[in-house]
C-alpha cells in the first residue's frame, strides 16, 4: 500500500515495449511489424494534434479567400 500523501511515480514512456500487431485479413505484406505501446502512441498523438490544431486555428490566408471570391464572382457573371 502506498503511504498516504505520496504519489506513485508515473511510468516513463521508455518503460513501455513494443508488441506484435494482430493479424488482420485486410493486411498486406507490409504489416508484419511491431506496434508501439499505448503510452508512446499517446505522446505522439498529443504532439501531432497540438501541431495540427495550431495550424487549423490560424487565420485563412487572404489569397485563399480572394480566390474563393473570384470563383464566386466568375460563377455569378456566367
Amino acid at each position, binding site marked *: 500500500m502506498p503511504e498516504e500523501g505520496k504519489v506513485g511515480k508515473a511510468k*516513463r*514512456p*521508455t*518503460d*513501455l*515495449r*513494443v508488441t*506484435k*500487431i494482430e493479424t*488482420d485479413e*485486410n*493486411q*498486406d505484406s*507490409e*504489416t*508484419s*511489424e*511491431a*506496434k*508501439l505501446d499505448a503510452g*508512446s*502512441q499517446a*505522446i*505522439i*498523438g498529443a*504532439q*501531432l*494534434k*497540438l*501541431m*495540427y*490544431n*495550431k*495550424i*487549423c*486555428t*490560424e487565420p*485563412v*490566408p487572404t*489569397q*485563399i479567400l480572394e*480566390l*474563393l471570391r473570384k*470563383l*464566386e464572382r466568375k*460563377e455569378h457573371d456566367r
Partner: protein
Amino acid sequence: VTPGSESDFHRALIGAIPNVRAFAVSLCGDSNLASDLVQETLMKAWAGRDSFELGTNMKAWLFTILRNTYFSAYRRSRRILPDDDVRVTQQLASPPEQDGHTDLQDFTRMLGLLSADQREALLLVGAEGVSYEEAAAISGCPVGTMKSRVNRARARLAQLMGLVDEEETTSARMSDRRLAGLVDRRFG
C-alpha cells in the same frame, strides 16, 4: 450540386479550409507551397463541384484532391522536405527528452523525416482522426497498407523523439525470443 444548393456547397467548402490547409502544411512542410496546393485544390473542387454529392464528406473529398495533386505534381518538383536525418537532427532546437516532451518545431521537423506516404497516413489517422478505412480510400491504398504506414510512422517518430531506441523500433524483424531477451536485459 444543383444551382439551389450552390450556397451549401460554398459553405461546406469554406468550413473545410482550415483542415485542408493544416493537412497541406503538415504534408509538404512548407507554408508557401501549402498555400499553392490549397488554392489548386479549391480550383479543382470548384470545377468539379457537379461531381460532389452534398451531404457526403467534403473534407475527405478535398483531402483526396489535395493529396493527388501533391503526389502527382508537387512531389515530382522536389519542393518537399528532404529525408535527410542528419541535417534535420542538427537543426533540432533541443535533443529529445526521455519524458517524450518535444519542442513543436522539432516535432514538425521530425515529421518531415518520415516518407511522404507515412506522413500522409499519420496526419489522416492521427491528426485528422479519420478511420483507417476512410484514410485508405483517400490515399487509394488497401486498409492493411494504411495501418502499416501509420504503425511505421509512429515507430519512426518514437525513435526520433527518444521514446524508444533503435533496437525496439526494429523489433518487427526480431523473433519473440529475441524480443524477450531484450526485455530481460532491460527489466530483468
